[in-house]
């Protein structure tokens, strides 16, 4: 027969499963709430005539399936993976890095102009696309580093969604009618990034008011 001590260990096992993959502040918050709920519920069962062991067993059963709970908590809280993605977005570096990105963009277009010889797009389109991507990149940079306030993470995610989306469209337009071979890997990577950022943007809509969860710029990895 299981004792209250083993059942208490089961509570921690339940919590471990239910809060797996969540960032530590979320896991801690859930742990404290469930522990208090558990203690209240055990007291209530004991007041109704259950022994301590019976009360613990009943309350553990009432907790439900930890795997299902984990799925629901992951929808409502940032996971380690989400936090890593947010940190990557926030880690924009300084002006020198932004200038380096502009240079990368320019090199990318030079490569394409060379690679896609005889492309059907007018040079004006290429120039407009280059300016638009540079503008979106600049937006990502300044949204991630607002002066005197915390960055708006959801807006940052949305800016990245626009950037990746525009890049995908431009790349597709450039490749249509010429060659897909040279762009397929880049296009797939961009599409995946676009979906990843879009998913994060949706999720941040669910958790954005829970500010303690948001890793601040330059915060160490949990």
């Amino acid at each position, binding site marked *: 027969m299981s004792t209250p001590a083993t059942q208490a260990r089961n509570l921690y096992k339940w919590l471990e499963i*239910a809060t797996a993959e969540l960032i530590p502040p979320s896991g801690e*918050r*859930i742990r*404290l*709430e*469930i*522990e*208090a*709920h*558990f*203690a*209240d*519920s055990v007291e*209530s069962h004991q007041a109704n005539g259950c022994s301590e062991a019976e009360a613990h067993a009943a309350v553990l059963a*009432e*907790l*439900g*399936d*930890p795997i*299902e*709970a984990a799925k*629901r*908590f992951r*929808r*409502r*809280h940032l996971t380690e993976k989400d936090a890593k993605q947010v940190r990557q977005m926030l880690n924009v570096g300084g002006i020198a890095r932004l200038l380096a990105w502009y240079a990368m963009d320019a090199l990318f277009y030079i490569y394409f102009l060379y690679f896609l010889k005889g492309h059907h797009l007018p040079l004006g389109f290429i120039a407009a696309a280059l300016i638009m991507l540079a503008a979106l990149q600049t937006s990502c940079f300044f949204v991630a580093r607002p002066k005197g306030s915390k960055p708006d993470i959801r807006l940052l995610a949305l800016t990245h969604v626009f950037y990746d989306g525009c890049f995908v469209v431009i790349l597709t337009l450039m490749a249509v009618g010429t060659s897909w071979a040279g762009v397929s890997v880049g296009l797939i990577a961009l599409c995946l990034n676009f979906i990843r950022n879009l998913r994060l943007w949706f999720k941040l*809509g*669910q*958790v*954005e*008011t*829970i500010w303690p969860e948001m890793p601040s710029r330059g915060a160490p990895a949990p």
Partner: protein
Amino acid sequence: MNFRGVLPTLILQNLSRGPNHGYRIAQEIKQKSKGVLDFKEGTLYPALHGLEGKGFITSQTRVENGRTRCYYELTEKGKKALAQDKQEWRRVSGAFNLILKEAM
């Protein structure tokens, strides 16, 4: 029947009478529904956190008798959402009753 979809509305209704913590919210819903609506913790807390994420409720941590409790409180946005949910529920349940009556 799966009643999980109505949990957020039930939580908002409970909090419309004042701040409350998770355990008491669950108990009050269970008592008022005469045991029909008994939500497990693994369902209740994600729903509470979801409502907080949407800005319908706010939370405040208090320590009582050595236990860390999170008290939830309805916001103005939450009050509006509750009013809308109630209206929608009356409309849908009215239609549902009409169909069930017809089937009898």
